[in-house]
């Protein structure tokens, strides 16, 4: 956890996020150890190492990109903020997805929380570059991390769904601390944030009155024009963070595969449209939806759709 080495002292590949876990306190590592040692042991042969990168190289990588050491509280900040920073940078390892990586797979320290990639999904920026049309607040972040739904922003989908599921066990004070720290990453002034909020709500109101795309009107409008406040209603799409991301991939994945709670769990739900829309129709819909966000058009939407639907019949 601290040094990124195994019992024999060999370097571990940083797929195990020890670059974050190094910040965890001794007390918490002790607690984790105590818990894990109460689990029933199983016999499981380790898989052969098939990573095409020699371990010796990991040592070089670590000397450049790995910064060991426990989290040090920032004296000018509140205890709550420091608790949040400790959880986010350490065990939470939020930056593993939300921070972009360089060519050698290390998180870019000069672009912390500026938005990254995970599997086929884009993990949105959490700093001032946050794509959410309505800026997040401590309260809305806390509600989102607790319930997976934020009325004016998003519903969790993709890998974030799992994160919110796991956070369901986390105490309210810790969730509040996480939300406090993450909200502080957006350093825009109150005035700038209020202006962004006003513009977004205005755009959403105007979009509702708009007609003219038969796919949107026939497939999306029934739920999405109602807004989250009403029964059977869903997020008004111009407010959706997903429309303002730098790539159409998340939106394409959500439309194709829907939003389905993990097996046996309750959760938000949206039907999958994979069989209903051809790649061309999905492309048209994505282009139309992007225009609702007021952002410049996405480049080469058709190529992204082909990438997502690859492997389909």
């Amino acid at each position, binding site marked *: 956890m601290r040094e990124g080495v195994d019992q024999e002292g060999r370097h571990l590949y940083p797929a195990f996020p020890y670059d974050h876990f190094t910040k965890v306190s001794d007390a918490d590592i002790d607690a984790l150890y105590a818990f894990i040692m109460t689990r029933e042991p199983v016999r499981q042969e380790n898989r052969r190492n098939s990573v095409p990168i020699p371990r010796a190289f990991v040592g070089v990588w670590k000397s450049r990109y790995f910064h060991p050491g426990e989290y040090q509280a920032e004296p000018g900040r509140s205890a709550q903020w420091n608790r949040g920073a400790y959880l986010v940078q350490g065990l939470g390892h939020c930056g593993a997805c939300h921070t972009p990586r360089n060519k050698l797979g290390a998180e870019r320290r000069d672009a912390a929380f500026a938005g990254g990639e995970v599997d086929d999904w884009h993990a949105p920026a959490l700093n001032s570059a946050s794509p959410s049309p309505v800026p997040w607040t401590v309260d809305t972040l806390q509600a989102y991390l607790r319930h997976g739904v934020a009325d004016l922003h998003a519903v969790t989908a993709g890998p974030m769904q799992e994160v919110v599921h796991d956070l369901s066990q986390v105490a309210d004070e810790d969730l509040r601390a996480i939300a406090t720290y993450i909200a502080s990453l957006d350093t825009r002034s109150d005035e700038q944030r209020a202006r962004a909020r006003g513009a977004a709500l205005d755009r959403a109101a105007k979009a509702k009155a708009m007609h003219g795309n*038969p796919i949107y*009107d*026939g*497939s999306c409008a029934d739920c999405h024009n109602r807004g989250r406040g009403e029964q059977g209603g869903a997020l008004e799409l111009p407010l959706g963070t997903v429309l303002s991301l730098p790539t159409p991939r998340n939106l394409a994945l959500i439309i194709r595969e829907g939003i*389905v709670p993990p097996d046996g769990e309750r959760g938000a739900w949206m*039907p999958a449209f*994979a*069989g*209903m829309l051809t790649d061309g129709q999905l492309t048209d819909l994505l282009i139309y939806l992007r225009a609702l966000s007021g952002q410049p058009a996405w480049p080469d939407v058709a190529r992204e759709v082909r990438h997502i639907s690859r492997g389909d019949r």
Partner: protein
Amino acid sequence: MKLDVNGRVHEVDADPTTPLLYVLRDGLQLNAAKFGCGLGQCGACTVMADGDAIFSCITPISVLQGRRIRTVEGLGTVEKPGAMQRAFIEMQAAQCGYCIPGMMMRAQALLERKPDASESDIRAALQPNLCRCGTHMRIVRAAVRAADLLRGKA
């Protein structure tokens, strides 16, 4: 516009945003697919388009130009029920019956794509379709039976 339903091409005069379900039921008198929630959340309206199961209540007809639509009416007739229909009758899978056409079409789409689908494949595929009577065990058995019949096992 023209709609190909169960191998017959129909001339349809309706707004392009009209859900396929309304055209099937009100225009073409094909009443197998049912209106449940109107939001794509219950599956009672499920039909097939080019082999995929789709919710006809949230599918505007404009996206279906040139695609082959199939409903339960296309699986067989009262006199000559198809394999899927025979399986559901054999297993007495219907309670109130409202969800059954959607269940049949989603199972049909799966079995045409994957004739050797296992019971767990069937359970996973039918997940979007709800049955409020709780007849799921018989529905799953009927779909398993249909897989046998479609593979030619008596």
